[in-house]
């Protein structure tokens, strides 16, 4: 078994604008099962960071416990990282983000880590509109403990053991919409054309960007009767739109069919281009997104793509009106204005 990936790269792949090759964004070779959807999501994160020319030290990756939460070892080896306690990734991220607002925070979690043990943490991170990307690698089962149904497993989905799931599954994207999350989307590990630009857009979004990524568990939940198998997802997938992320400085290269295209400008000047596949859906209208999601579900379809984006998003720092300087770099002289200032303040109370 190989435990080292060769350091060679394709000679026609050039370094990006900041001088890094794609391999510089990779991690160590994965120890997840061969064919795990999570590895594809790791691949999409690597691709996205390479393409937006992110300097690796500008990002912190955080995770909880589970197969999904192991993945930060397999990407962005040169970035900051914190593998936290089960379900507690959001609170660790909150603390880190409060201390240093200058980093991009990439939280990686799974369906168990988010929808079961970490549900309380998850909903509060949304409520606070913490500036982070929150990726759930959602395979509908507990892969690390041999494939029991998780809280997001669909009602009636039949696992490898042959049991039909008697419980209703939690739709994390629907929940995020309900809680007024400012960026919500769903994608599929097997569709990098959609997933890579969605990760880029999520990183550019100022606020809580939630991506629920369906990621088949190839070992325990890839049987034909499961609603999270590669074949089932491929047969039932539909998209809100053809999605493209255009960084601020780049020109738009894709021609979209007239009347169907929509453009959403992000806070930093970059744009999301959408070629809408459903006429009654508007990415900035939360109700149309909720309706669209329910409508697809009622037809047994899995809706992917961007659901909703709030272009007026105000993140936690903005709400709390903190200073622009990261708190962890404030010195004593910044924090303690001195005796004369204290005296003058005290005077106003006399």
């Amino acid at each position, binding site marked *: 078994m190989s435990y080292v990936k*060769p350091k060679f*790269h394709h000679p026609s792949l050039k370094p990006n604008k900041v001088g890094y090759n794609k391999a510089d964004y990779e991690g160590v070779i994965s120890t997840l099962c061969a064919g795990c959807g999570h590895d594809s999501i790791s691949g999409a994160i690597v691709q996205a960071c390479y393409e937006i020319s992110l300097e690796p030290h500008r990002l912190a990756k955080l995770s909880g416990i589970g197969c999904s939460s192991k993945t930060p070892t397999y990407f962005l080896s040169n970035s900051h990282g914190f593998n936290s306690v089960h379900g507690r990734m959001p609170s660790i991220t909150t603390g880190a983000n409060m201390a240093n607002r200058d980093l991009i925070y990439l939280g990686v979690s799974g369906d168990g880590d988010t929808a079961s043990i970490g549900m309380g943490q998850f909903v509060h991170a949304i409520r606070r509109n913490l500036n982070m990307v929150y990726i759930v690698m959602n395979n509908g089962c507990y892969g690390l403990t041999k494939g029991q149904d998780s809280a997001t497993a669909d009602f009636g989905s039949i696992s490898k053991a042959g049991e039909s799931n008697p419980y209703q599954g939690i739709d994390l994207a629907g929940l995020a919409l309900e809680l007024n999350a400012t960026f919500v989307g769903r994608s599929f590990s097997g569709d990098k054309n959609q997933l890579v630009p969605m990760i880029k857009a999520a990183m550019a979004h100022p606020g809580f960007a939630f991506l629920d990524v369906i990621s088949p568990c190839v070992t325990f939940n890839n049987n034909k009767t499961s609603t999270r198998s590669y074949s089932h997802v491929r047969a039932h997938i539909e998209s809100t739109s053809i999605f493209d992320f255009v960084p601020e400085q780049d020109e738009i290269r894709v021609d979209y069919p007239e009347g169907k295209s929509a453009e959403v400008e992000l806070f930093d000047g970059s744009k999301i281009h959408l070629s809408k596949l459903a006429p009654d859906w508007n990415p900035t209208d939360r109700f149309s997104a909720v309706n669209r999601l329910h409508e697809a579900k009622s037809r047994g379809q899995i809706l992917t793509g961007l659901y909703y984006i709030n272009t007026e998003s105000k993140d936690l720092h903005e709400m709390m009106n903190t200073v622009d300087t990261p708190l962890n770099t404030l010195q004593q002289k910044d924090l303690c204005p001195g005796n004369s200032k204290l005296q003058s303040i005290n005077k106003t109370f006399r």
Partner: protein
Amino acid sequence: MKETNIEDPEYFHKVVDCQYACPAHTPVPEYIRLIAAQKYTEAYMINWESNVFPGVLGRTCDRPCEPACRRGRVEDEPVAICRLKRVAADNKGEVKHLMPQGPFKSNGKRIALIGGGPASLTVARDLAPLGYELHLYDEWGKGGGMMRTQIPAFRLPESVLDEEVNYILDMGVVTHFNTFVESMKEILDKDYDAVFVGTGAPKGRALELPGFKEAGENIHVGIEYLAAVAFEHKDKIGKNVIVLGGGNTAMDCCRTSKRIGGEEVTVVVRSPRKDMKASPWEIEDAEREDITILNNMPPKEFIVEDGVLKGMLFGKVRAEYDENGKRKLIPTGEPDVFIPADDVIIAIGQDNSFPWIERDLGIEFGKWDLPKVDELTFQSTRENVFFGGDAAFGPENVITAVAHGHHAAVSIDLFCNGENIHDRPSPITNLVSQKMGIHEWTYDNAIAHDLRFKVPHEDKAISLKDRKVEVELGFDEQLGFKEAQRCLNCDVQTIFTSNLCIECDACVDVCPTDCITFTHNGEEEDLRTRLSAPAENKTQDLYVSGVLPATPRIMIKDEDVCLHCGLCAERCPTAAWDMKKYLYNTAKTYL
């Protein structure tokens, strides 16, 4: 694009770049793995079957395999394939019992082989086990041809050559040494069933500039000079020597001169350095022995005073190239340069020479007085006469002569059995999975950056004293092992079975060199631009699958820089990828 037909024996053959580039198609990775496993005898025999002279070629081959080596595309320098071959030859055990054992039952057919060089010897080896009576004619007293007369002993020790020539002669070849064939008619009158001409390109070109006649004995023709030294007819040369020419013969001439009395040895070439025909490593070896190489200086005149050669006069030029890359040498106008010399050796090329073939025998000659020879069968316009080696299409090299010999032997055998000689036998191929366990392969698939190892050399002070001391010492077992580990095992092929694929993308994500793409089909031009990494090297094929089961996409793999590391197969959950070893052997008469 159409689905790639991997049943075509040439498809995966092309992926094994070194083997494909080798004229004799030696299965290079196969023997390199054996060297790494210290199975030198087996490695030698794989070579011997394909290229007949592993010990000779391991020292002197032109190495067309090395520029083709994939290592050279992903790292700086190719695997030292040639020198690894020598490791096998140097360390092998007893091999003779592994070769076809005579005496062979006669099939009643008699073949004449004219010339005792690599082409004729290859024909002899391929035909002897089938019971042919082979008559080998050569003007010298020993077999080997140009390998003996033109390659100096400090590059190729006589013992190595003798050993490999004798393996063939000992198969029962009837030798007619010291016999210069003066007439093809006489040979044909002896009623051979077929005649093979492997007489090489034995005529060195002269350069009759002013003063040529007067200088007399102090002007030598390169290949004649090398032969005279090899057979010890000549053991001295003047202190100041000029060698004219920029090819490998010129390099051998200057280095030989340095060993038999030459002190100031200067190679003068009319063209720029980069246009010199000599192999870069031969130039390097000459310069290491303090030989001066001067470029852009065409010779003008031999300066002779009182009947004694004093030196030569050279002009000065610069090269200009037109848009077609055609070169013109333009005089710079600088004054001519005089270089003193006691002897001048002219090594500016060599030609075929067939004054001994009468022109009324039905053997037609064409351009440059070369015989008209079929490129597939090596048959001349007279059906029982075949040509091979340099005699067929002009000067090439040993490995090409060997390849010609194999083809000609197949033709002669078909011809003598009354079969159609254009109906060529197919190559022998085999494709076997290398899987030993879930993630275990039979070959070492861990690939790392490893710079090419240098071959150690004999101390200059020792080697320059005696022309028979071999300069290159060869890799020892340890260095040989390390260099062998640089081989990427390109013969272990990535085989894709599209109906097993679930399109999980694991192979795409893990591939270190981004060779694999799943996308919609299109024309090749278009596809090459929209892969994970643009496939700009058009000499390398794209491996295209059929339409996949789940989406209307196809798998495309750019063969160009695939490391054959097997990670795609290791990360594939359904074994849609497998690593299978592809063995390709050109058909030979006795196999």
